[in-house]
Structure formats: structure tokens, C-alpha cells
């Protein structure tokens, strides 16, 4: 049970390894050197990007000049976080089959995004997702609502990443937790404030390439160890794992069917409401590039999850039965999240271990940079320029505000990372997905598909989705019992999305139908223009001329 708990924690965020399980880590010089090379390279890119980032379109959307393949790689990079690489392989290592459910859930949101949203978002949007809704709804209320829910998603995601980063880097590099958090925070601020979306995208692309390379090599070497026979690998895993054949059947991790289903809903529809992901659709030239990028993203992410699955299963026998990697008690040295790192050592020695550790650090850095940029956009473009100044501001001022917001968010992220060091933050990524699925997704979808959606409906639905997702998470076992220490949870399921997402839709529906006045009819009247633009791209924001 202990191992399962660890894996669950590990998965929900990048690196909740239990430092207590680890011997005091020695400094890992191979890893530090390789990470130094990555930092030097990305700072060089940031310098290059800073010289090309002149307008707001450059800062928020990389001037619209990212190609479909590049954007697909960057999107895949956002998804191939340390949580999915280390967390899912750790979860497969402890719970076997059930680890597959997370990876599949993360993947299948993409086809839905492609079929129903990607092109339309590109045709309607400019810099932030609120641009899409304020196209026909009243900008003040919908931008405020969208900025709040975006910031909530970004904040929870960021806390999870920062705490994970601190703990992971402590283990991988032997650096103190506080140093690690500050290094991540400072580098992320540099990338975002100087290089904007262009630097953030290229950092993500490079990291995604390195991660795919490293994981592919590990998976091939691991398969070679079993003579390229999956059956031999599974048989060895069954023999080595304490639960034996149970690892090949669902149920070790997810025991409650409703929880499982609810998690499935959060993972699938949350993807279509994550602000840092949706922003990436505004970095490509047109709808065609948007759909090409989703195809590449889906392919890379699908391939990557197959790799993590092989890595996790290979590790059950290759790591789990080697006293070099596990203690006599059966616990993994350094905590559950170290499984993939140990496997790298098993198949490639110190060099590969150093490489994979450095890539894991790079991964966290790239993901937090994307999150910070999305948060800064919500502050500067939505709240400052369009709500507070009602559009009466200059591009220069708006960019200055967004840089200040990036620095402030970076400092806040460092502070939160330090404050939450000893906290159990396992629920936070799940909560971010649930809020995205419940508050953002219903409003975005109905805005494009349902003519009668109006401002009060969007605000009611978005608020209801946000509040219910957060409230139900607080009442769930993850917080109510594990953090607040009550005996029994009031809301019995781990993920709220099965309930909070329908509430979000219901709020939009009821809010739009009651008390329709002249404003509601005017908003319905503007639907035709939105619809035609979303379908054809006529009038869409073009690529900046570079």
C-alpha cells in the first residue's frame, strides 16, 4: 500500500519523491554538467529570441510564425512533463496496468481538441483564450472570469511543478531544495521576460526532442534486455513484482469505478481548457498549421506514453530486483519517482543516468516557463489592457505589464514552492485539469457552438465549474482526509470532473436562458460573424511579418 500511495503522489506532480527514503544524495556531476549545457543553449536561444521579440504579437504568440511541426513538438513538450515521464513510469512500476489509464487519458483529449476546437480557436483567437469568448460576449465580465480561472489553473499547476522540481532536483543533483526552487524560478523568469513565447516555445521543442531521444534509447535497450519479447518482459515483471499477476489486471490503483470514470473525464476534457496549451494555437500561421500541429502532438505524445509504459514494466524486474536500486524493504532508493532514473542507469550507466536526470530538470523548466507566460497573458492582456484600461493602452505599456507580471509570477512561484515544501500537493495537477475541464472548456465550446450562450450564462457556468471543481476537491479524500486530517471524506471520489463539468455546462445553459434581454439578443446576433470566421478564417489574426 505504501508503494501505491507513493506512486499516486508521484504521478500527480513531477517529483514528490520522499526524500526521507533517500540516503543523503551525492552530487551528480555528469547530470550537473549536462544540465549546464542545456541552460547555456537555452539562454543563447533566449538572447536570440529577445532580439526578435518587439511587438505584443511576438511576445504572446511568437509572431504567429511557428510551423505546425514545431508547434506539435512544443505541445507534446508541455504534456511530456516530468510528471508524465517519472510519474507514469513510477505508477506502472507500482500498479502495473493502471498506469496505462493516466497516459491514455492525457492523450485522448487531443483528437477531441482537433475535431471540435483547434481550427476554430486559431481562427477566432489572438493571444489568450478570453479573446475567443469576448469576440461576441461582453469583454469585461468574460475576460475577468476567464483570467481568474486561467490563473487558478496556472497557480495549482505551478505549485505542483515547483514543489516537484525542488524535491526531484534535490535527489537527482544533490542540491538543497531551496536552491533548486530558486534556480528554476530565475531561469524561467529569464526565458519568459526576455524571450517571450518564441523562447518558451524553442526551450520546449529542444527539451521534447531530448526527452524523446532519451526515452526511446531507454525503451529499446530495455526491450533488448528481454530479447525484444514483450511476453518475456511481462513474465519477468510478474515474477519480480510483489503483487505478481495482479499487475496485468486493472484495479491496483483505481479501485472505485466512479473515481476512475471521473478522472477519465478530467483528463480528456481538461486538455481542451488548459490556458498554456490553448495559447499555442495562436502561435501558428493559420488553421491548417493548427491542425497539423495537433496531429504531430498526438503522435509524439502517443509514442512517448508507449515508451513510458515499456520503461515502467521493464523496471519492475530490472530495477525492482536489483539491490543497487531498491532497499531491503522493497522501497525504491530515492523514492518512487526515481524508477526511470534507475532504469537509465541499468541500461546505460552513469552517462545515461546523468543525461536523463538533466532532461528531467529541463522538462520542469520548460513546463513552468509555459505556465508563467500563460499566467502573465491573463494578467496583462485580459485584466490590465482589456478590463482595467478597456483597451485604451499602448502595445508597449501592455508588454511592459506582461513582463512585470511574468517576474511577479516567477517570484510568487518561488515563494509558493518554498511555502509548500513540506505539504502534500498530490492533488494539484488533478485539480488543475478538473478546473480546466469544468470552468474553461464548457464556456469555450458553447461560445463556438451554441448561439444562445450569453455573457451571464458564460459567467455563471464558468464560476459554477470553477467553484464546484475546487470545492469538491477540498471535500475529497485527497485534501479532506490526507491534508486536513478528517476521518472520512464528504465527497468520496478522487476527481470532481464527472460532477463539476456537467455543472459548468448546466450553469451556462440556465444562465443563458433566464432573463434574456436586449444584450443577450445582441450577443446571439453576433454569433453569425463568429461562426463564419471560425469556419473560414476570414478576418482571422494573421501572422506577423518577419
Amino acid at each position, binding site marked *: 500500500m505504501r508503494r501505491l500511495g507513493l506512486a499516486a503522489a508521484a504521478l500527480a506532480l513531477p517529483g514528490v519523491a520522499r526524500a526521507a527514503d533517500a540516503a543523503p544524495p551525492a552530487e551528480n556531476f555528469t547530470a550537473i554538467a549536462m544540465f549546464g549545457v542545456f541552460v547555456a543553449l537555452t539562454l543563447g536561444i533566449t538572447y536570440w529570441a529577445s532580439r526578435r521579440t518587439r511587438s505584443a504579437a511576438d511576445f504572446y504568440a511568437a509572431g504567429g510564425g511557428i510551423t505546425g511541426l514545431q508547434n506539435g513538438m512544443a505541445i507534446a513538450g508541455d504534456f511530456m512533463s516530468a510528471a508524465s515521464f517519472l510519474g507514469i513510469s513510477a505508477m506502472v512500476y507500482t500498479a502495473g496496468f493502471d498506469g496505462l489509464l493516466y497516459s491514455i487519458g492525457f492523450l485522448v483529449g487531443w483528437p477531441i481538441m482537433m475535431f471540435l476546437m483547434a481550427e476554430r480557436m486559431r481562427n477566432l483567437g489572438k493571444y489568450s483564450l478570453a479573446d475567443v469568448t469576448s469576440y461576441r460576449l461582453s469583454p469585461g465580465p468574460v475576460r475577468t472570469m476567464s483570467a481568474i480561472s486561467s490563473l487558478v489553473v496556472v497557480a495549482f499547476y505551478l505549485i505542483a511543478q515547483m514543489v516537484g522540481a525542488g524535491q526531484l532536483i534535490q535527489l537527482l543533483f544533490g542540491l538543497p531544495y531551496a536552491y533548486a526552487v530558486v534556480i528554476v524560478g530565475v531561469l524561467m523568469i529569464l526565458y519568459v521576460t526576455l524571450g517571450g513565447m518564441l523562447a518558451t516555445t524553442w526551450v520546449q521543442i529542444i527539451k521534447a526532442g531530448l526527452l524523446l531521444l532519451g526515452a526511446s534509447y531507454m525503451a529499446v535497450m530495455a526491450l533488448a534486455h528481454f530479447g525484444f519479447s514483450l511476453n518475456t518482459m511481462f513474465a519477468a515483471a510478474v515474477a519480480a513484482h510483489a503483487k505478481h499477476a495482479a499487475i496485468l489486471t486493472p484495479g491496483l490503483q483505481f479501485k472505485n469505478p466512479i473515481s476512475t470514470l471521473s478522472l477519465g473525464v478530467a483528463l480528456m476534457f481538461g486538455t481542451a481548457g488548459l490556458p498554456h496549451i490553448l495559447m499555442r494555437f495562436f502561435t501558428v500561421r493559420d488553421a491548417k498549421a493548427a491542425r497539423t500541429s495537433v496531429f504531430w502532438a498526438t503522435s509524439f505524445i*502517443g509514442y512517448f506514453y508507449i515508451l513510458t509504459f515499456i520503461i515502467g514494466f521493464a523496471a519492475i524486474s530490472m530495477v525492482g530486483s536489483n539491490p543497487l536500486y531498491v532497499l531491503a524493504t522493497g522501497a525504491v532508493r530515492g523514492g518512487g519517482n526515481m524508477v526511470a532514473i534507475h532504469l537509465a542507469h541499468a541500461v546505460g550507466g552513469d552517462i545515461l543516468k546523468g543525461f536523463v536526470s538533466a532532461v528531467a530538470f529541463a522538462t520542469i523548466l520548460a513546463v513552468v516557463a509555459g505556465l508563467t507566460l500563460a499566467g502573465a497573458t491573463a494578467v496583462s492582456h485580459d485584466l490590465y489592457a482589456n478590463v482595467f484600461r478597456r483597451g485604451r493602452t499602448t502595445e508597449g505599456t501592455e508588454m511592459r505589464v506582461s513582463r512585470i507580471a511574468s517576474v511577479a509570477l516567477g517570484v510568487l512561484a518561488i515563494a509558493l514552492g518554498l511555502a509548500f515544501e513540506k505539504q502534500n500537493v498530490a492533488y494539484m495537477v488533478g485539480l488543475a485539469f478538473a478546473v480546466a475541464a469544468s470552468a474553461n472548456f464548457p464556456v469555450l465550446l458553447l461560445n463556438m457552438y451554441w448561439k444562445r450562450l450569453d455573457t451571464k450564462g458564460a459567467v455563471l457556468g464558468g464560476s459554477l465549474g470553477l467553484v464546484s471543481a475546487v470545492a469538491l476537491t477540498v471535500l475529497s479524500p485527497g485534501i479532506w482526509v490526507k491534508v486536513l486530517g478528517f476521518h472520512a471524506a464528504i465527497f468520496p471520489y478522487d476527481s470532481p470532473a464527472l460532477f463539476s463539468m456537467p455543472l459548468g455546462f448546466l450553469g451556462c445553459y440556465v444562465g443563458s436562458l433566464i432573463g434574456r434581454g436586449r444584450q443577450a439578443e445582441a450577443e446571439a446576433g453576433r454569433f453569425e460573424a463568429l461562426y463564419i470566421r471560425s469556419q473560414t478564417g476570414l478576418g482571422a489574426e494573421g501572422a506577423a511579418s518577419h
Partner: protein
Amino acid sequence: MDDITCAQVRANPDFAELERQRGRLGWTLAIIMLAVYFGFVLLVAFAPGLMGTPVAGVITLGFPLGLFVIVSAIALTGVYVVRANGRFDAMTSRIARANP
């Protein structure tokens, strides 16, 4: 976009065709994906025993089905891209030329 442009696009037979074909393809593929995914999740949630049936050596039914979900996600997005890059883009650019 002004009302006149909207009315012109609306009257364009290419637009009606684009709307019809893309709507049909998008929703069909979305429904297939939802059915495949939630079919898999429901089997995992409510029929773990069935998913644990060995099919080849020690490999159980759940693994090929999981792989099938991943491959379908990639294949369905591929189908959409191929159709959209050819047919839909041709119609879109005809509409754009008619309404400069």
C-alpha cells in the same frame, strides 16, 4: 466582419458544403473517439476481470485494447488532417477568393 460579408459567405454554396462536410466528419470522428475511450475506461472500471484475461502468453486483454486506444487517437487525427488539408482547404480558399 460586417453583415454584408456574412450574408455573402452564407449564400456561397461552397460554404454550405464546407459546413456540412466538416461538421459531419468532425462529429463522427469525435463520437468514435469518445466511444473508444469511454468504452475502454468503462471496461477498466467495471470489468477488470475481463481486461485481465490472458490473450497471448501472459499478456492480458487490457494491453492490446489500451494500445488500440492510443493508435486510434493517432489514426483518427491523421484521417482528419488528410481530409481537411485537401478538401476543406480547397473550399476555404475558394470562399476567401470570393470574399476578398
